C-alpha cells in the first residue's frame, strides 16, 4: 500500500510539474498578441527558436530580442537549446520542433554536421533563418555580425591604444572555442590589422576555454608566462570579464584588455577601467530579426532558401564612447549598462531600428560572402 502510494505521489507530482510548465509556455511574454509597435497583424504563427547553449548571459540577450519580436509579431515562440553546447542535441531539438508542428525555425548553426539535416527541413517546406553562428551551405539567410570586419575593428582600437603602427610589444590572442568559424574569422581579421604594425608580435590563438573559471585560469597562466604582454585580446564573451579581473588582480602588469560582447559583467570591467574595449554584435537584433523575418516569410510566402546575410551591426564600446550601428540613437556608457541589465529598456531603445531597418529587412540582404569581407 505504501509502495502504491509512493508511486502515485511521484507520478502526480511529476505530471503536475510537466503540466504546469506546459501551461507556463502560454505565458504573456511568449504569446502576446500585440507588442509596442510591431506589425501584429496576420494569423498567429508558431516558430521555434533554438540557441546553441542555454544559460549564457549573451545568449539570453538574443533570446530577449526574439521574445520581443514574438510579442510584436503575434508569434507563438518556443525557445530551446542544449545546456551543454552539443550541436547534435541542438539538431535533434530542431527536428522535434518541426515534428511538433512549428512553421519556421530560427537557429544558430555552429556545426557543419547540422547543414544537411537543416536543408532537408527547408526542402520539406519549413523555412529556416540562421543567427549568431551560421554555415554557408545552409539554404537560409544569416543574421549576425561581419565577423572578419569585427576582428579588424577590435584590433584597430587596441592598436591605436598601443600607439598605432609604430607600437611594439607582444599581443596575446585567445579563442575559447577553436574551430568555430565566427571566432576564426574574428581572429583572422584581428591578425590582419596587427600585421600593419611590424613591431607587434601576436602570440596565439590560445585555447582559453569557455567556462568562466577555466577561462580566467587560462588567461592567468598566459599572463604569467608573458608578463611583458602589452595587450590581451579575447574572441569570446567570457574573455573581457576574465581579463578585467586579471588586470585588477595584477595592477603592476598593465595591459590593454579587449574582447567581445556587452554582457553586464563585461561592461562592469570597462566601467572599472580594468578592460579597455568590447565589441557588441547587437544581440537584440540577432534575436529580433530572425523572428521578424520568419513571421513575414510564413505569412507572405517569401522564399528564404536563397540565403543571404543581414548585418546585425557591430557596437564599439569603451568607457568614453559607445558607437551603435544601423542608425540607432547615441548612447552613453551608463545607458548601455542599464540596457544590459534590462530587456525592457533594451526593447525601448531599439524601437527606431524596429520601425526602419528591421521592418525593411528585405532591402538589407547582402551576399553571404560579406560575412568574411
Amino acid at each position, binding site marked *: 500500500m505504501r509502495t502504491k502510494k509512493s508511486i502515485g505521489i511521484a507520478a502526480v507530482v511529476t505530471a503536475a510539474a510537466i503540466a504546469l510548465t506546459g501551461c507556463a509556455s502560454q505565458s504573456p511574454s511568449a504569446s502576446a498578441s500585440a507588442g509596442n509597435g510591431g506589425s501584429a497583424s496576420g494569423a498567429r504563427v508558431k516558430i521555434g527558436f533554438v540557441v546553441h547553449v542555454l544559460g549564457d548571459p549573451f545568449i539570453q540577450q538574443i533570446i530577449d530580442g526574439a521574445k520581443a519580436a514574438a510579442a510584436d509579431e503575434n508569434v507563438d515562440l518556443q525557445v530551446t*537549446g542544449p545546456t551543454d553546447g552539443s550541436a547534435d542535441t541542438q539538431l535533434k531539438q530542431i527536428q522535434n520542433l518541426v515534428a511538433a508542428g512549428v512553421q519556421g525555425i530560427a537557429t544558430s548553426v555552429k556545426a557543419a*554536421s547540422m547543414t544537411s539535416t537543416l536543408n532537408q527541413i527547408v526542402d520539406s517546406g519549413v523555412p529556416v533563418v540562421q543567427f549568431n553562428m551560421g554555415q554557408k551551405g545552409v539554404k537560409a539567410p544569416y543574421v549576425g555580425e561581419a565577423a572578419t570586419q569585427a576582428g579588424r575593428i577590435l584590433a584597430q582600437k587596441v592598436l591605436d591604444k598601443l600607439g598605432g603602427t609604430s607600437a611594439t610589444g607582444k599581443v596575446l590572442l585567445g579563442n575559447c572555442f577553436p574551430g568555430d568559424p565566427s571566432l576564426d574569422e574574428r581572429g583572422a581579421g584581428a591578425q590582419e590589422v596587427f600585421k600593419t604594425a611590424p613591431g607587434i608580435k601576436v602570440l596565439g590563438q590560445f585555447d582559453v576555454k569557455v567556462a568562466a573559471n577555466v577561462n580566467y585560469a587560462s588567461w592567468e597562466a598566459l599572463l604569467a608566462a608573458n608578463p611583458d604582454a602589452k595587450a590581451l585580446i579575447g574572441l569570446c564573451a567570457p574573455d573581457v570579464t576574465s581579463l578585467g579581473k586579471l588586470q585588477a588582480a595584477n595592477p603592476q602588469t598593465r595591459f590593454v584588455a579587449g574582447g567581445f560582447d556587452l554582457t553586464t559583467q563585461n561592461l562592469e570591467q570597462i566601467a572599472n577601467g580594468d578592460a579597455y574595449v568590447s565589441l557588441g554584435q547587437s544581440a537584440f537584433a540577432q534575436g529580433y530579426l530572425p523572428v521578424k523575418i520568419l513571421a513575414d516569410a510564413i505569412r507572405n510566402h517569401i522564399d528564404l532558401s536563397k540565403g543571404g546575410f543581414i548585418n546585425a551591426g557591430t557596437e564599439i564600446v569603451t568607457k568614453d564612447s559607445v558607437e551603435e550601428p544601423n542608425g540607432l540613437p547615441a548612447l552613453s556608457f551608463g545607458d548601455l549598462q542599464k540596457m544590459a541589465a534590462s530587456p525592457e529598456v533594451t526593447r525601448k531603445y531599439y524601437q527606431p531600428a524596429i520601425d526602419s531597418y528591421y521592418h525593411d529587412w528585405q532591402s538589407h540582404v547582402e551576399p553571404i560572402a560579406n560575412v568574411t569581407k
Partner: protein
Amino acid sequence: MDGVVDGVAPTGNLIGRLWARRPEESGVLAALIVLVAIVSVVRPTFLIPVILFQQVANAAIIGMLALGMVFVVVVRDIDLSVGWNFNFSAVIAATAMTMGLNPWLGLLIGVAFGALLGLVNGLLAVRLRLPVIVITLGTMSMFQGLSLVTNGSKAIVPPDTTGSFFTLVQARLFGVVPSIAIVFLVVAVVLHIVMHHTRFGYQVQALGSNPVAARLGGIPVARTRVLTLVVIGTLAGLTGSLFLGLRGAIDPVTGGEFMLPVVAAVIIGGTPLSGGKGTLIGAVIGALIIQVITAGILFLGVPDTWSTFVTGAVIILAVSVDQIIKRRSGGRLRDSVDSE
C-alpha cells in the same frame, strides 16, 4: 521461487506466473511507456509512426555507445574516453573519404580505428594495473588532442555525400523507419546474445561479480578487461562512421559531450555501477527514455527556463518506477550505489 511475489496473485494463477517471469527490464519499459503515453495524450501527433521512429533514430548514437558501456560497467569500470573515441574515429573515417577512398572503406577504417583506440585503453589499464576510469581520464584528452591535430580544428566534410553509403545511412525503410534505427536495434540484439549466450559474456559477468573468484576460476581477467574496451571502442568507431554518413560531416568537438548521456542511459536502463550484471535491452530503453524526455519537453511546450529541471525530475521518476517494480519482485537483490 517462481510465482512467489509479495502481494501479487497466488502461484498457480497464470497472471501470477507471467508476472514472476517478467523480464528484468519491465520496470524501465513501463516507465518508457508511461512517458510516451503522457506526451501522446497531450500531443497525439507524437504517436505518428514516422515521428516515433525518428525518436529511435535520434537515440541510436547514444544508445549504441551505451551498449558498449554496459560491458565496461559490468566489469566495474567506466570509459570516460568514449565520446572522443567516437569523434576521433569519425575524423579518421572522414579523412579517408576526403583522400579519395570509397566511403564503405572509410566506414571499415573508422570501425577498426575505434577498436584500436579501445585496445590502447585496455592495454594501458592492464599493463599499468590501473582502473579504466583513471586511464581514460588521460586518454580522453589525448584522443581529443590528436583529433584536433588531425582535423586542424575544422569540420571535415567528405567531398561526395551522394554515394551509396550516405544514401543507405540516411534512408528510411518504407519511408518510415530510419536505417540507423534498424542498425541500433540489430546491434542491441547481437550484443544481448553475446552477453548472455557466449563464453565471453559469461566471463564478463563473472569478472564483474567477483574478480577474485573469476581469477581463481581460471577466467582470463586481463584479456576479458581488454576485450570489453575493444567492444566499446568498436562501437565508438561504428557510431562515429554512421554519424558521418547521417550528417555528412564531422565537427571538431562533436562527441565530447556524449559521455554523460551514455552513462545515464546505462544506469537508467538498470545496469548497476557496482558491476556483475548488465542489461543491453535496458540500455536501449534507457537511451529511448532520455530521448523521449528531450522530445516530450518540446512537444509539451515546456519553457526553456524550466526544461532542465523537468528533465531531471522525469529521469528520477523513471528510475523510481523501475526501482519500485524491482523491489516488489522479491527476487534478485539489486545492487545500488548507496548500500542498504
